[in-house]
């Protein structure tokens, strides 16, 4: 079975591609970025998902399945281009799947879709509306991409589509939203708040994506690993020093004084938890994670 991965050069894209190979799939990939040292078995096409060259890959290679990971998620990357990649890229992906006979599509999205608020339930289920769109405008394009991808469930019912909402990944690659936040030796927290963070080892996340493919899931599924852990505990376990900063100072200080840059909408994400219920995914696939909460943090901490 031939699987096309968009955004294959990203951290999760690479891991997923390698897992697919291990599981005996034939893998081709599209990305604007190169992947130096990619296995020879993987045929790579350096192209923008929105451009004709990418469409050509669908047309010529006729993959049986496609995994969409070509979304810009770095919050520092706030160009209008980001929005276009995330929305028009997703649209192009879905169109190509439909036009070139792709039977199965997987969209790898984020659990931050649900947003963080003082009064939201601790475990989000898939039917909940996105609350992050208005409190965190920087995430609005990802929320829209998620909803847009989900619309293909009724738009193209003949394509088996799974929309995954995956919790933060963490692991030896040191890539990803949570890893970037934990980069420095001192990690700022908001004084008086300590939200639960839900995370999964990056290998487990890649495995979950392959599992969704293997089980031909059709629908929207939250994906999580071990049970959530308070942010301050993660910071300490990662060998970092937590620094509690009052919320007002925090807003002034981000991006300066050695604090990482964080968009103002993210402050709610440092005050309130985003935790997901992934029972539906587990029931449908019997998926289990391999790395527990401590092993996951240690793999991040000890990586070079």
């Amino acid at each position, binding site marked *: 079975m031939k699987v096309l991965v968009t955004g294959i050069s990203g951290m999760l894209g690479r891991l997923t591609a390698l897992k697919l190979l291990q599981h005996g799939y034939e893998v081709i990939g599209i990305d604007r970025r190169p992947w130096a040292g990619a296995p020879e078995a993987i045929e790579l096409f350096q192209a923008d998902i929105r451009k004709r060259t990418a469409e050509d890959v669908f047309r010529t290679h006729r993959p049986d399945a496609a995994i969409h990971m070509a979304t810009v998620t770095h919050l520092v990357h706030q160009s209008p281009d980001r929005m276009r990649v995330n929305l028009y890229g997703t649209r192009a992906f879905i169109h190509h799947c439909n036009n070139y006979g792709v039977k199965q599509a997987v969209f790898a999205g984020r659990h931050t879709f649900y947003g963080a608020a*003082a*009064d939201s339930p601790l475990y989000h289920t898939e039917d909940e509306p996105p609350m992050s769109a208005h409190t965190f405008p920087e995430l609005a394009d990802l929320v829209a991409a998620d909803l847009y991808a989900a619309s293909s469930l009724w738009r193209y019912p003949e394509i088996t589509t799974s929309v995954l909402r995956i919790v933060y990944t963490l692991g030896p690659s040191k890539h990803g939203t949570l890893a970037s936040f934990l980069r420095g030796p001192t990690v700022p927290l908001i004084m008086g708040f300590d939200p639960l963070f839900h995370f999964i080892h990056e290998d487990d996340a890649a495995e979950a994506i392959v599992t969704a493919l293997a089980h031909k899931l059709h629908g929207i599924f939250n994906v999580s690993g071990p*049970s959530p852990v308070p942010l301050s*505990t993660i910071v300490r376990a990662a060998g970092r020093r937590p620094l509690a900063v009052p919320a007002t100072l925090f807003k002034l200080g981000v991006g300066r004084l050695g604090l990482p840059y964080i968009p103002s909408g993210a402050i709610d994400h440092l005050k*309130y*938890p985003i935790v997901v219920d992934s029972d539906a995914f587990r029931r449908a696939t019997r998926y289990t994670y391999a790395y527990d*909460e401590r092993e996951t943090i240690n793999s991040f901490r000890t990586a070079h």
Partner: protein
Amino acid sequence: MLDNLLTIDPEIAARIEALDLEFNKFGIDPYGIDKNDLTRFVSAFAWIYRYYFKVDVYGLDNVPSQGRAVLVGNHSGGVAIDAAMVMGSMLLDAEPPRLPHAMIDKFIHQFPGASKFMSRTGQFSGNPDQAIRLLRAERLLLVFPEGARGTAKLARDADSLVGFGTGFMRLALETKSPIMPFGFVGGGDALPTIANLKRLGRLLGVPYVPITKWILLVPKPTRFQLLYGKPMYFEGTGHERDEVVAAMVDQVKERIRDLIRQGRQLREKEISEEDLEL
């Protein structure tokens, strides 16, 4: 979070150990309860519960020692001392101990410190999805259907009941959970509120600021009566018409009114423990 402030009492540590909770490698349960923080906090709180206040608890055996249930009772003045005392009785007197999850007003989670503290001790903003999830996980829920209207009662009205919300009944019906009515007496003496400043409250982001006889919001040492009634079981799906649910809620309200009345009589020494009908 409380490591530097509070010490651990070995007796309390054993009680927390006996709770029916599953902690992960960091000592955190799936709902964010921190074993270490909880132990330290309850160690300090035990002194307040046992010596600063004194709570005469009746009918504790009525509360199931395991499985889902909804504790439903009255607010009796000022701030939710009643909730703290119910917590105390379940954690410090009940055998085996249980940790009730109170459905608290959402404004509490907006405050620094309070949010962190409530999160690590399993106290969530009242949210039906959250409540149903906890009940399905066989947890014990604590609900004050009077809400902030209940704590806003002035001291002279402490034994009265204001309007009950009906959400708790729908949750109980949907999850087939028994309702455990309780009556709490004495809150009006601990914290005799004479006025509530609503406008100041709005400025501070709270429903109101209570003013006591001695101005400050410091409760005086008080003896309370806490009466747990027999479980009440209701049949239904949780999707009944409002009138049907309201009638069930009225039964619970009457039961709580009766428990408060008996508690008041005990307090005034008009009856003794043998006369109680729980």
